[in-house]
C-alpha cells in the first residue's frame, strides 16, 4: 500500500535524522560561504590590480577552479593530500577547504565584476563635488558595489548548498545518505519508501534554497 508508506517519515526519529543530514551540508556551505566572502573580497580587489603577475596568478587560479569538477578537487584533497603528505584531514575539513577554495574564486570574480562596473564618472563627479578619496569610497563606491554584490553572494550560497551534497562521496552522511539508509533499513516493511523519502529530501532542499533565492530577487529588484 503506497499511501501508507508515508508513515515511514513518522517512524522513530526518521524525519529528525533527515534534518540532521541536511544540516551537515548546510553547515559546510555556511562555513565555506562565510570564509569565501571575506577572502573573495580580497581576491576580487587583487584581481583589479594592473600588475601582470597579479593578473597571471588570478587567471590561473580562476581557470583551475572553473575547469576542475568540484568532485575531483574533493577527491584530490581528501584522498590525495592524505596520501601524498600524510595530512590527516577529516572529510568535513576537506570539504570546507575545497568549497572555500571554489567559493573564493567565484566570489572574487563577482567582486571584481562589481568593482569595475562602477563607471569612472562616478569617481569624477564625486571628486568634482569636493569629496575626498575616502569619502568617495565610503559614500559612493562601496554602497554601489555592495548592492550589486549582495544578491550575487546570496545566489552563490544556494549554489554552494546544492553542490555540497557531493560530500557524500567522501563518506559524509548528509541528507541523501540518511535517506538511503532509511530506505535500505525499511526495504521490506515499506517497499515504496523511496518515493516519500526522496520527495521529502527534495522539499527540504527547496525550503532551504527557495527563501534564499527569494531574498536575492527582492534585493535585486529593490536596488536595481
Amino acid at each position, binding site marked *: 500500500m503506497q499511501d501508507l508508506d508515508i508513515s515511514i517519515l513518522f517512524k522513530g526519529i526518521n524525519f529528525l535524522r533527515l534534518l540532521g543530514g541536511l544540516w551537515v551540508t548546510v553547515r559546510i556551505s555556511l562555513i565555506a560561504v562565510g570564509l569565501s566572502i571575506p577572502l573573495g573580497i580580497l581576491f576580487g580587489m587583487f584581481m583589479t590590480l594592473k600588475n601582470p603577475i597579479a593578473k597571471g596568478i588570478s587567471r590561473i587560479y580562476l581557470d583551475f577552479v572553473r575547469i576542475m569538477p568540484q568532485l575531483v578537487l574533493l577527491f584530490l584533497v581528501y584522498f590525495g593530500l592524505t596520501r601524498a603528505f600524510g595530512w590527516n584531514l577529516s572529510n568535513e575539513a576537506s570539504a570546507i577547504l575545497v568549497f572555500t577554495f571554489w567559493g573564493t574564486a567565484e566570489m572574487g570574480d563577482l567582486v571584481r565584476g562589481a568593482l569595475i562596473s562602477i563607471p569612472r564618472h562616478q569617481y569624477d563627479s564625486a*571628486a*568634482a563635488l569636493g569629496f*575626498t578619496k575616502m569619502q568617495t569610497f565610503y559614500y559612493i563606491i562601496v*554602497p554601489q558595489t555592495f548592492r550589486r554584490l549582495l544578491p550575487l553572494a546570496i545566489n552563490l550560497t544556494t549554489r554552494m548548498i546544492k553542490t555540497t551534497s557531493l560530500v557524500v562521496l567522501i563518506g559524509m552522511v548528509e541528507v541523501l545518505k540518511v535517506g538511503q539508509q532509511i530506505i535500505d533499513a525499511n526495504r521490506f516493511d515499506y517497499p515504496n519508501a523511496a518515493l516519500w523519502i526522496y520527495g521529502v529530501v527534495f522539499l527540504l532542499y527547496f525550503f532551504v534554497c527557495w527563501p534564499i533565492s527569494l531574498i536575492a530577487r527582492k534585493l535585486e529588484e529593490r536596488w536595481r
Partner: protein
Amino acid sequence: MEETVQLQVQGLIKRFGNETVLNGISFSVHKGEVMVVLGPSGCGKSTLLRCINGLEAADGGRILLDGEPIISGGKNMIRMRQKIGMVFQSYDLFPHKNILENITLAPMKVQKRSKQEAREEAEQLLNRVGLWEKRNAFPRQLSGGQKQRVAIVRALCMHPEVMLFDEVTAALDPEMVREVLDVMLELASQGMTMIIVTHEMQFARAIADRVLFLDRGTVMEESTPEKFFSAPQTKRAQEFLNTFTFEKPNH
C-alpha cells in the same frame, strides 16, 4: 559686467604620454562672464575643464581662481573644488541615492552643513528647475534632461563661484536639449561665471560673452560671439563652422 578677473589660465600644458593635448593655453574669465569653448573633437576641451577643477594634473602653466593657484592633489584642492561646479556629459548622478540625497550629500558631508538647511536649499533649487515633484525619485526614474538638470542643481547647491559645463546636452534626445539649455541661460542671466563646452552653435552664440576656439591644444581664436560666428579670423575656425552648415545638394 564687473572687471574683476575670476579665473586665469596661464600657459597651461597637459600631456598624455607623448601626446601634448594642451599646448600653452592662456585666457581669463571675468566675474559673471560666460565663456564658450569651441573646437573640433579631440582638441582638448574636456581636458581643459578637467584641469581647471584639478581632475587632471597640469604638466605646465598655472590656473588661478581668485588669484589662488589650483594644483591637482594640492592641499587646497578640496576647498578650491567647492568653488567650482562641474557638470559632465554622462549622467553622473549617484544611482543609489534619491534626488534630494544626491543634491544634499556633498553640502552635508563636504561642507558640513545641516541636513535641514541643505534640504531646504535643494528643494528651492529643484523648484527653480521644475523638478520639485521628483525630489524623492531615483535617478533611473528620470529622463536624461531631468537628470542633467538635477546634476546642475547638485553643483549649484555647493555655492560655486564658477560653473563648468562639458557638453551637457550631447547625450540627450533632441527634445530634451532645450530644457537643460534654458536652465543654463537663466544661470547666465543671474550673473554666474561659466565656462561652457558645447556643440550647440545657436546656443553658444546666444549665451556667450566670449568665445574661445581651440584647435590641437592651442587657442586659435578668442573673440566675441558676433565676430566669431559672422567673421571667423582663422581658416581652422571657418572650416570648423562650416561643419555645422549644410548646403542643398545639386542634382
